[in-house]
């Protein structure tokens, strides 16, 4: 029986069948956890540039425009996402905010991520020269210089610069209570 032709075929068939059954079970058991890990990694990739110290992010508002950033169990800041009308369309901005309400870093969506500003002018909002001005700024400083603030507008692209700066300021103002925890009160 061990070497019969039928058994040659059948033994391989049974092996494959059992293997496929076992793997489908294991796959279904681990899938939710794998998806979760992928989301965590995806969030790290999206928010890591503006909040390098954090290793975990949790949405703080139902529309996901504010995220709390944690390093281990300790909250280290927040992520704020906003998009205001610019020259060619919405200008999506992601910013990391520390627990005192100051900006750590900002990221403006690139052209490949859907930014429709003019190349050479408004598109410069994604470059470090413009972005890096925001580091350390609080909500009162978040205004273009020509509007009485501290941010240099991109030459020839005031509308884009304003969309980034004002969009960010309005978002920070709107969620200020979420971003800056009241001392002594657990803000979860």
């Amino acid at each position, binding site marked *: 029986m061990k*070497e019969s032709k039928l058994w040659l075929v059948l033994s391989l068939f049974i092996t494959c069948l059992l293997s496929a059954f076992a793997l489908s079970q294991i796959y279904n058991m681990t899938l939710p956890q*794998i998806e979760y890990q992928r989301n965590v990694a995806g969030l790290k990739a999206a928010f890591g540039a503006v909040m390098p110290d954090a290793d975990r992010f949790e949405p703080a508002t139902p529309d996901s425009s504010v995220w709390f950033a944690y390093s281990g169990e300790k909250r280290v800041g927040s992520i704020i996402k906003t998009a205001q009308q610019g020259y060619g369309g919405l200008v999506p901005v992601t910013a990391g905010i520390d627990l005192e309400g100051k900006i750590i870093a900002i990221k403006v969506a690139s052209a490949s991520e859907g930014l429709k500003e003019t190349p050479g002018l408004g598109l410069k909002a994604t470059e470090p020269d413009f972005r890096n001005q925001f580091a350390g700024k609080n909500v009162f400083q978040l205004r273009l210089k020509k509007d009485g603030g501290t941010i240099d507008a991109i030459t020839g692209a005031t509308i884009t610069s304003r969309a980034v700066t004002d969009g960010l300021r309005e978002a920070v103002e709107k969620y200020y209570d979420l971003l800056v925890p009241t001392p002594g009160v657990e803000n979860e």
Partner: protein
Amino acid sequence: MNNGPKPSRLSYLTSGIVKENPTLILMIGLCPTLATTVTARDGLGMALAASFVLVCSNVVVSAIRKIVPDSVRIPIFIIIISTFVTIIDYVMQAYQPDLYRVLGVFVPLIVVNCIILGRAEAFAYHHGIIDSFLDGLGKSIGFALVLFIMGTLREFFGSGTFFGKAVLPAAYRAQPMLFAIFPPGAFFLIGLLKALVNKTALGKRSQ
């Protein structure tokens, strides 16, 4: 295989650790040994994954050895081995994502690890379940030992850390011996380990 007096069960377990160490004496499974031992943690992670597959495949192959036709045994072994590899792949992806990212392609490549198919063919196919389990465990320990030693030494010299914890002064860690964590360092180190094994009593038997 030499057919002297029948070896005791315990020797199935212990022979794999030193006397028939898969990596340093039999010189098989070198690819993961060289590629995944940049840190002690990676080396140990790889060793644990391979050990799981080796022990499980040895047991299953031994359990079905009497009904498997000789002419299709290799495809059947491969299916069994790749099933266990895929299981460990999913589990690692779900619960150890960082390790999974580091080990990357070397997890699926456990399928073609010579140690595992070699033991299935040379040992488990001819021995009972308990003996095959002990053999798989012993070879796993031997494999894990080498990967752990390699990973520890390379991490120590190449990064000045042990399991990610700093052990050498910051001045060294700022400018470590990068050679150790680059691929040539792996070849160099396995050469030194092999030389050490050959020079001592451990290697005598293999000559």
